[in-house]
């Protein structure tokens, strides 16, 4: 379980979002973080992943303070999918996945048979088999996004934090991928927490919703969240309406 205690996240001394009390994320849950641009979705994710941008409060994983883990221990609990892409474009897809087994390999990074198995499985399930020898620089944005998600799965952690994992994907691939990730959570007992702008998909697939509105964080089950009808409040526009978690656009012509 990830437990956040009285957290305040932000930059320098400027608090972007906060929560009084305990925020707890159980295992085998598919959880999305929603909120407007700049509300602190990514900041909250980073605070959980690395303690970056955590101004106050504590993060506990399996009831142990995050600061008391070594870097390698941490890397076996939390993996990340980031929006930044500063990796070498000369890496092939397979090499990229191989490097992500770093927490389990020896000092020189030698891969065992089990590592290859995990990698092959991920290549298979994310439909990347035919891309495995392609260089990262030659992939389309959507393909690369799938590679980065497979990368996090290959790291084989209890918790996966994703920052907008479905950006750059086509609508059909968005739906397929999110469903696949939800099933992965439920089948393997893993927890995925992801920040997203895809409200309707989040409403129909997630178990729990973390919403950030005007600097305060809320955490509810999906049914409670839909009932409370907060969406209209969080995303106010006269051209968008939310009914039972379904998004409708209204333009007078």
């Amino acid at each position, binding site marked *: 379980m990830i437990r956040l205690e009285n957290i305040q996240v932000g930059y320098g001394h400027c608090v972007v979002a906060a929560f009084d009390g305990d925020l707890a994320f159980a295992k085998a849950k598919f959880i999305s973080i929603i909120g407007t641009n700049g509300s602190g979705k990514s900041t909250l994710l980073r605070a959980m992943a690395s303690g970056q941008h955590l101004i106050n409060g504590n993060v506990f994983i399996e009831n142990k303070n995050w600061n008391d883990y070594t870097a390698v221990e941490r890397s076996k609990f939390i993996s990340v999918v980031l929006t930044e892409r500063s990796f070498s474009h*000369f890496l092939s897809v397979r090499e990229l996945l191989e490097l992500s087994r770093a927490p389990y390999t020896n000092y020189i990074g030698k891969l065992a048979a089990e590592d290859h198995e995990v990698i092959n499985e991920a290549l298979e399930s994310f439909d990347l088999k035919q891309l495995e020898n392609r260089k990262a620089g030659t992939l389309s944005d959507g393909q690369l996004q799938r590679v980065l998600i497979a990368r996090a799965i290959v790291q084989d952690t209890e918790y996966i934090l994703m920052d907008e994992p479905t950006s750059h994907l086509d609508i059909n691939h968005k739906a397929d991928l999110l469903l696949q990730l939800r099933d992965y959570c439920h089948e393997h007992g893993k927890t995925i927490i992801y920040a997203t702008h895809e409200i309707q998909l989040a409403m129909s697939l997630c178990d729990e919703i973390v919403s950030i509105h005007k600097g305060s964080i809320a955490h509810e089950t999906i049914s409670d969240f839909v009932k409370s009808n907060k969406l209209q409040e969080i995303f106010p526009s006269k051209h968008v309406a939310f009914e039972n978690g379904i998004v409708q656009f209204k333009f007078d012509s």
Partner: protein
Amino acid sequence: MDALFGLENPQTGKTVRYIITELRLPRAIMAILTGAGLAIAGLLMQTLFRNPLAGPFVLGISSGAGLGVALVIMGATALGIGAISGFGIITASVVGSLVVLLLIILMSLRIKDTMGLLIVGLMVGSLSSAVVGILSYFSSSEQLKRYVFWSMGSLGNINWADLWIIILLFFLALILLIWIIKPLNALLLGESYALSLGINIKKTRWIIIIITSILAGSITAYAGPIAFIGLAVPHLSRLILPTVNHKILIPTVVLLGATLLLFCDLVSQLPFSNYSLPINAVTSLLGAPLIIWLIMRKRNLHF
């Protein structure tokens, strides 16, 4: 070793023996160490800064050595000291690069951002160049000539005692290098991902700086600022063997760097003549067209 060169033949003159063991052999070994060492340093800098234009001297090491040498050659007369020996120049070069290195390492304690470190290195380089420029302006043409000669690099001014120091430092750097192969590969994913994979970025950055300092510092001290090899060899390796895995890349740059500089040194001797060219001119003359040709063929240059 004598058998290797056919020197066991008593008829072989003492002079020939001296030329081979005291001049040619140290020079060849120096070329091998310089080529390999600068190539490793360049590779490390390119990986650390994720920048294809980085080379072994981006942290200002050669500029520091240059400043030291300039101070000794051109500043000495101002202080009333007469002619400066070759030994004085080497000492100045060692001290110069050491001072810059310590400065960079001290600042890297405070600078968290890797790109910030790169810019600081470039600034230190510009600062040293500016001081060298001022010194040159006020110095005599004879002094200027000596400085220019040093800055063109030379593999010949080395004796066995100095060579052993470089060999020792080279192997020290290699041991440190094996230790960070895994973090180096993880850095290819970018610092954020490397961090999430349990890599200690701070420690890795430190070791990279130390290895680069040992290699580039000691080599520049004795051979002068050898241009081009450090920047070009990592690219050549990646173009020849299409991989970025440091387990393969490091042995490749070592071999390629050593071969390339040996060859350049051979060319610089201008066979069948008594003339020899400055090594820096040869490395660039041969290397630059090679890189351009490879890029034209492969159409891209990654790091």
